[in-house]
Structures are given as C-alpha cells and as structure tokens.
C-alpha cells in the first residue's frame, strides 16, 4: 500500500526524523514502565485485548471526523476514538470475568474477538472511503514510524510524558497495588481509583503506540521489555527503570529500521528487537544472580 511518501524519500537525519525518533523513544519508555505493572498484575492478555480494542474506536473516529468535516486523520481524534474503545475493553473484560463466571481467560477471548471483529468491519468502511485509503490508517495495524508527521510525534510525546509523570508520582502506591492489593486496601489507599488510573495508563500506552508499534503488536512493547527487566531482577523501581530503558532501545531500533528499509513495518521491527532483548536477558540474569549469590555468601562470612 502507498503511503503519503516512501520512507527513503526523507533525509535520514532530518528534523522530522529526530522528532519522530524522540516520539518513539518516549513511547518506548512508557511501554516498558507500564508493562512492568501489567506483568506484575498478570494482565498481559488484558493488555493485548486493550490494544486490539483500539481498532473500532480509531475507525469510528476517522469516519466521524470525515463526516463532520473536521479531518479524520487528526492524531488527537484518532487517539480519543481508540482510547475510548480500548478503555471500554479494559473495563469490561474484568467485569465479564467476575460477573458471568467466565474466568479471565474466557473473558479476554470474548472481548478481543468482539472488539477486533467490530474494528475490522468498521475498518473496511474506512478503506472504501476515498480519503480513508489515502489516510494510511492501515499502518496503525503494524505501525509505521517513518510515515509519522511532526504533529503525530508531538501528540504521542505529550500523552506519553503526562502518563510517565503520573506513573512516577504515584509509583509507590501503584507498586503496593500490584504486590498486595489487600494490604493497600487496609492501609486506606484509594484502590479503586488507583486501579482505574493504571488502566488509563495502559490505554495511554496503547493509543500512543498505535502509530509507532501498531495495534496488533503494541503488546510486545508492553510485555517483552518488562519481562526482560524482570528476569534481570532487583527492586521494583529498578525493574521499571530497566524496562523503560529496554523500551526506549527497542522503540528507537524499530524506528531506525523503519526509516532505513522501505515499507518496513515498525511494529514488527520493535517486536523482534524486544524478543531479542528478552532472550539476551536470560544469560545476563544468570551472571547477575551468580554474582549476587557470591556477594551475599561473602556478607554472611
């Protein structure tokens, strides 16, 4: 499919490249750190559902934008649409699992199928729309950082930085919620509001990741860097920081690959980079673990 321009037409280190790379890097930091919480709360599949559930919202937002003649390609409009349906999925999945005795596994499958199914139907309408095909919405499926505009990168960076700040400010409360929800409740923390806020952060990661990693593969950027950091170990703060660094590295690597090779899907490059990072973390963790053992044996002596 032909985008606005091919990747190779843009100068490699132009101003746009730098903006786009920065946008990707901020997204990577957010995905890695939010992923640490997603993994700790055993919500990896919920993250996948949330990612896929952004599709109907994006398609709907595009169609409404075109119908209202306010421009269906506005990043803020697409983020809003994707965010609403992603949040709806993130909320309804645990609700289904609880209320209908379906269990988390069944609820995830039902919600993913429902939202993604609706999304593909709406998406076919977008493709049949004259500006829809040109708008390059297909790149939202697997990501295409090379085709991002400055305003796309700015919107991504704004949302991602706001989400990162929230995460940093409430880090210890979120970490207690992830470790021991009952203890957080007895301590008097506003567990329900914190839970909602974490879901919002997940949704923010999904919507900022749509153009960068793509709806289908955004979950890889949420989980693989966090899993690699967790394998390496240390405190929760250290794990989240390492995951954020891995996220940045994978996001930038994906963006560079997308810039270098024509029509290279950024999301796939990021997913592959994240997988490599995860597998490299296993031998690293063994070395670090052996060193820790040695140190604690010396301390005991």
């Amino acid at each position, binding site marked *: 499919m032909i985008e606005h321009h091919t990747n190779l037409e843009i100068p490699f280190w132009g101003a746009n490249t730098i903006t786009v790379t920065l946008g990707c890097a901020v997204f990577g930091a957010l995905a890695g750190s939010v992923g640490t919480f997603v993994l*700790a709360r055993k919500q990896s599949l919920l993250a996948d559902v949330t990612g896929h559930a952004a599709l109907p919202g994006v398609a709907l937002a595009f169609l409404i934008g075109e119908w209202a003649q306010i421009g269906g390609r506005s990043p803020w409009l697409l983020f809003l649409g994707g965010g609403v349906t992603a949040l709806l999925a993130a909320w309804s999945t645990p609700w289904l699992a609880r209320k209908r005795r379906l269990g988390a596994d069944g609820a995830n499958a039902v919600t993913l199928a429902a939202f993604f199914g609706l999304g593909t139907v709406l998406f076919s309408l977008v493709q049949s729309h004259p500006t829809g095909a040109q708008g390059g919405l297909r790149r939202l499926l697997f990501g295409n950082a090379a085709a991002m505009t400055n305003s796309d990168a700015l919107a991504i960076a704004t949302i991602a930085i706001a989400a990162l700040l929230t995460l940093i*400010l*409430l880090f*210890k*409360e979120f*970490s*207690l919620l*992830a*470790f*021991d929800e*009952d*203890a957080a*409740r*007895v*301590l*008097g*923390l506003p567990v329900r509001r914190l839970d909602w806020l974490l879901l919002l952060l997940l949704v923010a990661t999904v919507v900022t990741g749509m153009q960068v990693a793509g709806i289908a593969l955004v979950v890889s950027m949420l989980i693989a860097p966090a899993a690699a950091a*967790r394998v390496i*170990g*240390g*405190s*929760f*703060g*250290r*794990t989240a920081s390492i995951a954020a660094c891995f996220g940045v590295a994978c996001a930038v690597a994906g963006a560079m690959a997308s810039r270098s090779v024509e029509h290279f899907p950024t999301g796939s490059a990021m997913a592959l980079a994240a997988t490599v990072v995860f597998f490299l973390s296993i031998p690293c963790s063994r070395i670090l673990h052996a060193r820790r053992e040695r140190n*604690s044996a010396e*301390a*005991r002596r």
Partner: protein
Amino acid sequence: MNDRASPLAVDGFSAGYGNGEVIVHDASFALRRGAMTALVGPNGAGKSTLLKGALGLLPHANTACVRFFGQPLEQVRARVAYLPQRADIDWTFPASALDVAAMGLYRKIGFFRRVSGRWKTEARRALALVGMESLESMPIGELSGGQQQRVLLARSLVQGADLLMLDEPFVNVDFATEERLGAVLRDACRSGMSVLAVHHDLGDVRRYFDDAVLFDGTVVAHGPIEDALADANLHEAFKLGPPPEDSIA
C-alpha cells in the same frame, strides 16, 4: 459483650463472597486489649473470611456491626495492620526485603513522596526486630518461607498499629521463625498492642496465645484460652461427637 474500647468488636457479623453462600454467620465477640488472641477452628470454618470481612476486604460484607477501638475502620485505619496469608502473595514480585517492609509506611509517607532515608531507617529497624537486617537487599523471591513471613511481619510492625490482624502467621515456617515471631508478637502485646491471629495448630496454641475465639462458621466460644478451648467446645467446633467420657459411658 460489645466493649466499646475493644480493639475489635463484632456484633452479629455475617459475610460471604457474594455468591449467595454465607460463610460467617452472626459472629459476635470483642477482643481484649493487650492480649494475643487466636482465631481457631476447623479447615473451611471461615476464619480467613471473618478476618477479611471485618477488614472490609469482601465487597459484599456489611461492616456496620464491626468496630475497631469503638469506631468504624475508616476512622482508625492507622491503628490497624493486616498480615495476609503467605500463599496470597506473589513472591516472584521484583522487590527486596527492605522494599516490602517499607510498604507498611506508605500511608505515613503520603502521596507523591519518595521513600527517603528516614523511612528506610524505620523499615530497617522493623527488619532488625524480626532478625532480617542482614538480608534487607535480598529479592523476596529468594528468601525461605520463614524469612518471607518475617518480612511480612516487619511490614506490619513498621506501621506502628495498635491492632495486628494476622492470617496463619505460623504456617509452613521453620521452628526458629515461629519462636521469633511468637516472641516479637508477645513483646508487642506487652507494650500495648493487641493481636488477633488465625491459627490452625491446636497443639501449640497455648504456647503463644492468651485468649481464643473458637470458630466454626460462627463463634462457638470466646475467652481465656483454657475456657474457650475446653473439650466440650472443641468437640462442638470440630464435630468430633460427644466428649470422651460420654462415649465411654
């Protein structure tokens, strides 16, 4: 029965998990201040449900008849600490022993603030009380079961609460840990703290506890341990049939 100054008084409390089944029926008792009270009863009697329900952890339990220090829990949260069952915790969570102990201070530290050196010193002091000071930087997943339980107790102690509610603190811990935890709790009670602990082992309940609540879906007996755990009460709670002398007769 309902002493307003009691650390925990429940009067006609019922609770379940919202699926229509009532697990705790019309429970009433009041803890004695400064006492170590064991909550004992057969498996599946609802001891943990009673503890969680009283602490407002079960969304469908009405806690209107539960009073902590004569008030609803919301008013006195800082005075109440809870130690969950070790099995309820994800021990693969990436945190050190010091991180977990410091979690008990999060309410005091307040929102948007980091765990600074002063708070870490307090957490270290609590770890030292339970004999874990040398392992403060160890990931919790690499600690033994007994060490993990000690860390959880440190997290509860660091809160500086007046009532400590523990769910099976002595389960699957080594003898040294059991002795240490028992001694720490006894010291805490001497300095005015009250303890309510779910305990499953009738063999050693008298070693550590002053009072007992014998529970089998409802309160069978409550009071000083010798009275509450009298043979007749135990036979009723554990459904062992009539006491031995009756069966011989």
